[in-house]
Structure formats: structure tokens, C-alpha cells
């Protein structure tokens, strides 16, 4: 693929998928700066790959981007956990104070992997089958994670309201 075509794919992908990938990333790293750095790395990887070979279709491209984002986010989250540099509070400053702030706070309390599955299922609308491929988990594990997350959220909600 020539350079101009790769630049076009990059520009399109940044316009179309930045927000989604940013949300995927922030579920792990919990701060805007790291999530933006991850985005840059992911798109650089996309550009490099586009110069060599293309993608079957938009869905293939999106799934590839999410997969790479998850992998990079896990690495950064692990690094942050070891070096304790993450500003965990960053994400909370973005929280708005309207009627969904309560749920957002409770979702933040979930385990990062559960949070990721909740995001892909409820926000991105991916079916369980696709999530299991993206995260390299069995469908049963994804179902379990979803049900666990729902139970936990229910538990948190009832605690909060007590």
C-alpha cells in the first residue's frame, strides 16, 4: 500500500475510532494523559501496518484497533501499578454531577477486566462472541464476567441506598 493511502486510512481511523479507543483505554489506565499516549501508539502501529498490508473491512480494522489498545493499556496499567505514578483521581475530575454520576462511580469500582467487558457489551454493542475473541477469553468467561459485574453493581447500588 502506498504512503498516501496509509495516511488516508490513518486520518479516517483517528476521526472515526479515537473516542471509542480512548474509552477502552481509560477503563484500564484511569488517566487522560496515559490514554492519549496509548492512542498515539496504537495509531502509529496502524500506520506502520497499513504501509505493509490492509484490512478486510471496517469491522476488521476496528477489532484490530481495540485489540491493540487493550494490550497496550494493560501494559501501561501494569507499569503504573508497579511505579505508582497513576493519578487515579484524574478520572474522577471528569465525572459530571447529574443523574448518572452514581452509576459511573459504581462502574469505576469494578475490576478493570469486568469494566472493559461492560463497556464493550453495553456501550460498543459487541456480542459476547466477539468480546470473547477480542479479549481472548471463552464465551462462558465473558458471560460470567457480565453477570458478576451486574451482581456487583446491584450490590453496590443497594449498599449506596441504604
Amino acid at each position, binding site marked *: 500500500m502506498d504512503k498516501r493511502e496509509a495516511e488516508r486510512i*490513518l486520518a479516517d481511523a*483517528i476521526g472515526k475510532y479515537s473516542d471509542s479507543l480512548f474509552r477502552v483505554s481509560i477503563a484500564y489506565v484511569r488517566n487522560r494523559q496515559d490514554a*492519549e499516549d496509548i492512542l*498515539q501508539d496504537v495509531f502509529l502501529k496502524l500506520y506502520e501496518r497499513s504501509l505493509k498490508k490492509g484490512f478486510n473491512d471496517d469491522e476488521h480494522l476496528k477489532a484490530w484497533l481495540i485489540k491493540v489498545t487493550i494490550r497496550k493499556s494493560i501494559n501501561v496499567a*501494569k507499569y503504573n501499578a508497579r511505579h505508582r505514578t497513576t493519578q487515579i483521581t484524574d478520572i474522577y475530575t471528569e465525572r459530571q454531577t447529574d443523574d*448518572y454520576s452514581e452509576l459511573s462511580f459504581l462502574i469505576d469500582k469494578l475490576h478493570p*477486566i469486568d469494566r472493559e467487558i461492560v463497556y464493550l457489551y453495553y*456501550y460498543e454493542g459487541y456480542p459476547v462472541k466477539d468480546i470473547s475473541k477480542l479479549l481472548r477469553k471463552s464465551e462462558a468467561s465473558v458471560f*460470567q464476567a457480565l453477570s*458478576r459485574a451486574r451482581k456487583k453493581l446491584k450490590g453496590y447500588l443497594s449498599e449506596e441506598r441504604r
Partner: protein
Amino acid sequence: MNYKKYMEQFTVSEITKDRIYTNIISKKEKKMKYARFSKGFAFVFIGIFLFLAAGMGIWYAITNSTDQTLQKRQSSYILAFSCVYDKSRIPFRVDDFDENGEIAQSVGSLSELQSFSAEKGFPFFDETDENYSADLSKKIREYDDVFFKNNSLVLLFKLSDKYDLSRFDDLRVESGIMTITLNKPEEEGTLSDLYAFVYLIETTKTLSERVLEIRTETLQNGNRVDYFGQLYSGFDELYSSGEITLDDIKSVSYYCGKDVDVCGETITVEPNYIPKEKNPESLSEETLILIYMSYVDLIAEEWKRIANPSNNPKIDEMLEKEIKTMLEIITIDDYYGTYNGYVAINLTIDLSKSGGLSLAVISSYSQSLVMFWKGHEQ
């Protein structure tokens, strides 16, 4: 309450998108320029390298003599075995050690090795001795005539009154003197008792034939070293970093006879699951000791951090007491196999005997059912 609405607050501004695009394109441009430049440079570099290599070859052939300094080369020696024993478990007599508490010997044949053992009263070849079947003795008996055909064995035994003495760092031969370098941390150990350190170093025959005398030197190293190995609590860290696989975890779960939690997920083993074979089948005494020492080391570090040593003049005395207690109350109950070099174990602490031990310190390391340990890699 709307989850979609909640997630929508996380967006990337147009400015950031533009910045990402510009950064990537300019980064790539720079890389391509560099690639063009480095291609040209590579030819020049290869030329210079070949010229230097030929020159060095000639120089080596001219100057190679028996007295020259042998730099650290992977092929000239390897550390084949190292272990530390506490007083109650030293598997040999320590009466004949010199005033430095050290015995260093190079042997070039099986008969030399046998006479050395007999002379020092070591039990390695003495079937009547209770330590004949100790792991160290077994290891030493593995060296046979085939090994000694092209190799020699350097044995270094060192006694110390501190548990965190030194670790092997380097070996070199200069003017007929073999110098074994050990590295010592700046931080002194705090547990005072008798400890024996054993190092078995395999060398090439050509290297050891030049040796007239063996010396040891100890360097002070600023960095703290995990002498005994590293412990990991639970599966999460090793699994998420790809060090162990899901299949490894299932095998551990199988040997535990329980479901295990990994990254917030419960792993259940299917009834017909066939686990990986345990390799080794059981843990050697040396490994068990290293695991115990790693644990004590870890707890001591944590304890010191919490106890705020700068404000506490009696810190060493207190820590010594804590560590002695710790050694008495921890037990490795089960071994669940070794996966990618990580030894899976169940380590329990008898809290009823903990006495004055700070429970807050040990609690974070004792909650998990399974711990992993990996030995220090030389």
C-alpha cells in the same frame, strides 16, 4: 441513569486528534530519513568492523599466553550450583574451615574430587554419613570422568554470620591466580547466625590448568539484590504479564483441588481435565530453603519500611527477633508444580505462634492460597 451517557463524557478533542496525526506522520518521516542514512552508514560500519575484527584476531594469536588475563567469557565458566544453608541444615562439617571461614578448591578429575572430599571430611562420597543423600552431595556425585575430560570444577564454601552475604558475580584468571568475585549489598543483613554459602563453578580445563591459587574478593554493590528469588502472591501478576498460561493455572487449580481466582475471574477445572506433569516432581531441599529465605527477605523489607528505621535505633535487634520467629512459623505445605520456572506452592503461617510478630506486615503476603517463586537467575 444511563451508562452510554456516562461513557460519552470521555472524548478526544479535535486538537488532540490533529496532534496525534501530525506526530505520527512526522515521526515516520524522521524514521524513514534515519533508515536511508543508516543504510549508507551500515556499509561503512561493516567495513570498519571487519577490519578491526581481523586486527584483533591477529593480536590475540600473537599475545595468547598462559599468564594473560582471561576476561569473563560465557564459555570459560558457568555457575552450576549455589545455595545457602542455615546452621541447622549445613550438609557438611565446618570444623576445618580456615579463619576466613572459607574453602576454595579447583579439581580437575573425579579422583581429585574424591580425595578433596575425604581430606576435608565432606560427606559427598561417604555412604555412611547422614548427609550422603543431601542434594549437595548428590549434585557433586553427578560430576564424572566424562565431565572432567574437558572441564574442571571449582568448589567454594563460605561461612558467614549474616544471612544476606554475597552472591557470585565473576571469575577471572590472571598471572596464575583465579579470583572469584562476590557481590555484597550496601545494606547489611540483620539476622545473626551461622550460614554456609556453597558455589559450584564449572570451568574449562584450559582455564583451570593455569590456576596456581584461588582467591575471593567481595565488592560492595549499591543495589539490593534478590539473592534468594522472587515471590508472587496469587496468579494475577504472572498471568497478565504472560509468564504463566491459563493451562498452567488450571494445572495448579487441579493440584490444589480448588477453583482459583485470576484477575477477578474464577477458573474452574473441567472434570476430565488432564494437568501438566509436575516437573520436578518434588522440590529439593535447596529450593525449599531458598523459598523460605525469599519470604523472610520480603517480609523483612516490608517490616523495615513500616517500622520507620530512621526513628528507631533498635530496629536491627527487633527485626532479628521478628525474622527468627518468622522462620519458625512458616511452612510450605504443598507444591503444585513448576511453570515456566515459577514454582507454585502453598505457604502457610501459624499465626497462633506468631508472638509479637506484626500481623499487619505479613497479612498482605499470606492471604492468597497459591504463591509463586522464581529463583534468582545468575
